[in-house]
């Protein structure tokens, strides 16, 4: 169950951009809605105006998830902004998933809230996809992980291995990447807590998630 990621009330999803952070965050919020009626998801992506949590706002709300979006998500306003209701996750005592933008640039926004995350208790996870160019070398992936910790002022609790090749993913891809994820986790000194796969590519020990990425065709 993906909800195993909740050790504290706040889960933060970070990583290199394009590793599937939003897909993980949305899956987690949808699943957590069964256990935690107070679940919130906050879209804190200040980096990329395309393919974001807002694409899933309808299905999330239908499951009772409180969706906190920046006012300008999916519009032509190309400026970084935070959801006005975002501080709710610190004051309301609710369970929350924070979906953060890619790389250290995306994680910088967390810095101003680091103390408040510390106060309520958080688990920050690094989403890893071995098939993204800058994760091909474990060395760079470790650099990226450390850079996110420096930028956010927060510590990673674990690594989520979300390795995939889009539509060309099969079991050899998902299962085959586990060794690389383990090597990365060992080099980073952060535990590998989960490997995800869609149902058709699932293998023993993985956590099954759904593809919630917006489909154009």
């Amino acid at each position: 169950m993906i909800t195993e990621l909740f050790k504290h009330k706040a889960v933060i999803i970070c990583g290199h951009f394009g590793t599937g952070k939003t897909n993980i965050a949305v899956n987690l919020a949808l699943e957590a809605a069964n256990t935690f009626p107070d679940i919130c998801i906050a879209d804190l992506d200040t980096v990329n105006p395309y393919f974001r949590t807002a694409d899933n706002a309808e299905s999330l709300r239908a499951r009772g998830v409180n969706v906190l979006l920046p006012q300008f998500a999916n519009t032509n306003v190309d400026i970084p902004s935070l959801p006005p209701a975002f501080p709710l996750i610190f004051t309301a005592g609710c369970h929350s998933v924070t979906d953060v933008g890619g790389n250290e640039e995306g994680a910088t926004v967390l810095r101003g809230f680091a103390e408040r995350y510390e106060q309520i208790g958080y688990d920050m996870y690094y989403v890893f996809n071995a098939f993204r160019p800058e994760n091909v070398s474990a060395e760079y992936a470790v650099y990226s992980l450390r850079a996110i910790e420096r930028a956010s002022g927060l510590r990673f609790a674990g690594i989520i291995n979300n390795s995939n090749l889009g539509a060309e993913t099969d079991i050899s891809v998902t299962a085959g990447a586990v060794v690389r994820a383990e090597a990365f986790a060992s080099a980073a000194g952060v535990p590998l807590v989960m490997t995800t796969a869609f149902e058709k590519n699932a293998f023993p020990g993985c956590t099954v998630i759904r593809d919630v990425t917006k489909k154009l065709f």
Partner: protein
Amino acid sequence: MSKMLMKGNEAIAEAAIRSGCKLFFGYPITPQTELSEYMAKQMPKRGGLCLQAESEIAAINMVLGATASGARAITSSSSPGISLKSEGISYIAGSDLPCVIVNVQRGGPGLGGIQPAQSDYNQATKAPGHGDLHLIVLAPASVQEMASLTGLAFDLADQYRMPAMILADGALGQMMEPVDFEDRTPRSLPEKTWACCGHANKREHNVINSLYIQPNVLEDIVVERFKRYKEVEKNEVMYEEYMCEDADVVIVAYGITARIAKSAVKEARAKGVKAGLFRCITLYPFPAEQLKSLSLKVKRFVSVEMNMGQMVNDVKVAIDCRVPVTHYGRTGGVIPTVKEITEEILRLSAIKEG
């Protein structure tokens, strides 16, 4: 090298570096920015230079200077930025310099928006700058093609000594698909004997220029250049036909719209309508002859574009208006859905000719 999962913008950048392009000049703009970001991170590590210019105009003129020395260079932008580059593009074409220009299109006119569009088709194929000129215009429809057509664009540009454009859009730039960078073989190309790279007192000095004092000299130069364009038109047309053999209604599309249209063709076929897709891969040269042959077999064409109707006119001209050609489009950053294109195919197939 195994496949990687990449954004279209990243794939163009990586393909350019692998094509021996070590010079990127650009100015950031959504939805193209990952391309410059990738260049900024990779070029210094790989012996190249990524320079963020003070403006799009500066960037395109840096490309002019760099390519005059015989180096491969690339610049990228999105719609409003391409308009700014148009003077430089014309100078590059007038100087017979090869380069690659990337347009990751967004909604316009004016500042428009940041969501995907295809409304720069006319600009790219008809008037990318002032004067009698053409760019080679390649229209990728997948992240794989963002990579492979970038490699091809450099080769074509060098072979014909002219600028080549990758005409993409925000959706292709931002979406992620697997990509293999070893799927094409580079062409063998002539030596750049014209380059201004130092004559070392061993040959006459070369001059790169687009100014001519005598009108008849300029005319001769332009006429000669158009002979090269004829070669491009004869040799370099690329297109893909999908289920056109027995089709009544054929969609003509390129880029992301062709991907959506392909799904619509399948849906229309499932509903009993003989639909097909003609995908233009080169927009200049335009696959006019191929469309003309196809027009002998089909009942009508519909040009599906993310604009108010631009390529539709080239389709009409290509087929001498032999059968009806209509346009279906969304604009302003709105992407048509599979459902609405399917409905348009069904609507058109129900029209009785008379």
